[in-house]
């Protein structure tokens, strides 16, 4: 408590007394003409795979074709495929494929915003071996500024941008996919409105 007071008193005394008003800025990025194409190109460049799907059946086909003979597949899309949450994140350590729904996607950097309510368990997007994120084509925005104009008024307890599979280049700058999190990221761009969740 004493430290708190000392630090805050010192800051109050030392912070410059020029009246810097809060930055009121408007940044004008160059508009991206084809959002879906740009998003796909960025994702490919950061090591993810992208497909377009139209219906939920296609989602099932995709899973069977891409991960044949794989039992540990888990799909959780609130409003469509619901599941009971297990007791803790450790319970998901053997999940080979997790299919989750992203809230929002950014064309300029390939990042997909996902919050706790779509994760089933907060550990799941990180502990699974392969992650599949479904993104509604209408939820793709140009830049991070656009994304934050939605996020700044959103309610969440925990949210993250995911851009690609987990990676590292710590050994002599050689890029290796699959550091601690998923070894692959697949993004399914949903062309129709079939898999909509309650955030819409």
């Amino acid at each position, binding site marked *: 408590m004493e*430290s708190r007071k*000392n*630090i*805050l008193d*010192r*800051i109050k*005394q*030392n*912070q*410059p*007394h020029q*009246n*810097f008003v*809060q*930055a009121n800025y408007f*940044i*004008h*990025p*160059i508009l991206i003409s084809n959002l879906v194409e740009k998003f796909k190109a960025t994702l490919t460049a*950061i090591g993810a795979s992208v497909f377009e799907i139209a219906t939920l059946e296609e989602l099932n086909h995709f899973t069977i074709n891409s991960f044949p003979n794989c039992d540990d597949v888990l799909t959780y899309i609130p409003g469509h495929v619901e599941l009971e949450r297990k007791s*803790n994140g450790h319970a998901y*350590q053997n999940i080979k494929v997790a299919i989750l729904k992203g809230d929002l996607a950014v064309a*300029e950097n390939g*990042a997909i915003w996902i919050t706790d309510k779509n994760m089933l368990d*907060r*550990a799941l*997007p*990180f*502990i699974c071996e392969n992650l599949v994120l479904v993104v509604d084509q209408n939820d793709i925005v140009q*830049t*991070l*500024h656009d*994304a*934050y104009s939605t*996020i*700044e008024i959103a309610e*969440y*307890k*925990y*949210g*993250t*941008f*995911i*851009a*690609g599979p*987990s*990676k*590292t*280049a*710590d*050994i*002599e*700058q*050689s890029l*290796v996919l*699959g*550091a*601690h*999190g*998923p070894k692959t990221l697949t993004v399914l761009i949903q062309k129709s409105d079939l898999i909509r969740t309650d955030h819409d």
Partner: protein
Amino acid sequence: MRKTETPLSHASLAESFNKDEQRVNWHDQTLWFIREKRDKAAWQIPEWEQLREVASTIKSNVLANLHEYLTAFEKAAINNGAVVHWAENAEEHNKIVLSIIQKHKASNIVKSKSMLTEECHLNAFLAKNGVDVVDTDLGERIVQLANEPPSHIVLPCIHWKKEEIGELFHQHLGTPKGNADPQFLTGAARKHLRTKFLSSSVAITGVNFAVSETGEVVVCTNEGNADLGVQLADVHIACMGIEKIIPKRRDLGVFLRLLTRSATGQPITTYSSHFKTPRKGQEMHIVLVDNGRSQRLASDDFRNALKCIRCGACFNTCPVYRRSGGHSYHTAVAGPIGSILSPGWDIKKYSDLPSASTLCGSCSNVCPVKIDIHDQLYKWRQEITKKGNSPKQKTILMNIMNLILSHPVLFNLAGSFGRKVMKWAPSVVNNRINPWYKQREMPEPPPQSFTEWYKKNNNGKP
């Protein structure tokens, strides 16, 4: 790799780094390659300069209202369910972290990258108190196994060759001798660290940004180690310097666009995670650390160093850093930014660092928050000389230079003498006593001075 002789000086440590010329060239080129990736990423954003300007302005506003932003942050964080702690210095920070760990009777914990905990030497403190901390960032784990500090704030083991890492892993993780394949070694580390994630009840993370309005902290990683650690642990301890505050969520749009493009040339890190409310049953602690920051806030000359978002761009571009290596700075944060932060912590111990620069200004040009790094380097030199902390040899030379430069006759004489000596007796300057001759050839002396040339070509007219 770290020399232990006292007093440590950048020049002597750099000299030992420079013994292996091939290795220095490799280090230099690797970092330059990353600098080039940064350029390419920046050039793709036409509004890049505007982003830098806005980022710098947001930070100016934060520093001028830090008291208000911090108290608002604290209130919001408590409201979210976090516990907020305040630490005056490194020692208090370490004690707070230890007490949380002890309260939960944990003895193995995981930690993701945090330069603040490096600044506070947390690992050594916890180890002394019987806590086994595992750094989970691959690069940090490598230097931790080697018992070394990181040599770069973003690329902790940039000075390590893959063969050496292969050998290190062979010794510590039992990988086959002679296997130096990055893919294989990363896989081995993944396996080894996965067991640590699954068995640790406490996870420590650093903080990239703390949003005053919402009380949430944002942590950026490529590996996913911060999230995996926190989401499997019962307790999350987030350690941050008080300058990490930004006003609103929307400001993240500016900073996240700049951070990773400046750092590695990627458009964004793989994970940019916003920790607001802990899970049900999980504890979240936020430790706010001053450690000299509030003092620096008072200085018009040095305040702006607090804007740093730790992207590492100034390291990668610095010709001195690239050719002397991170350990030659003998401080937690190396490179140009470390050279202006460290003298603020201890002006005596780090009096050599502001001189570890050519003042070329490249650092200031790449800095995403527009810190006047090279100006501050220069100002620290003056500060150090004023306080009588500069090396003796330099002081004497400076006095001689002062005498010569302020007397034109002496200046002309000295110039002509110098040219003759270099021509007729080059060994007087081309020797080991002259630090400029190390790793360099001296240039050919010109036959005449500019003044002599001008007089001759202008028929003696002034």
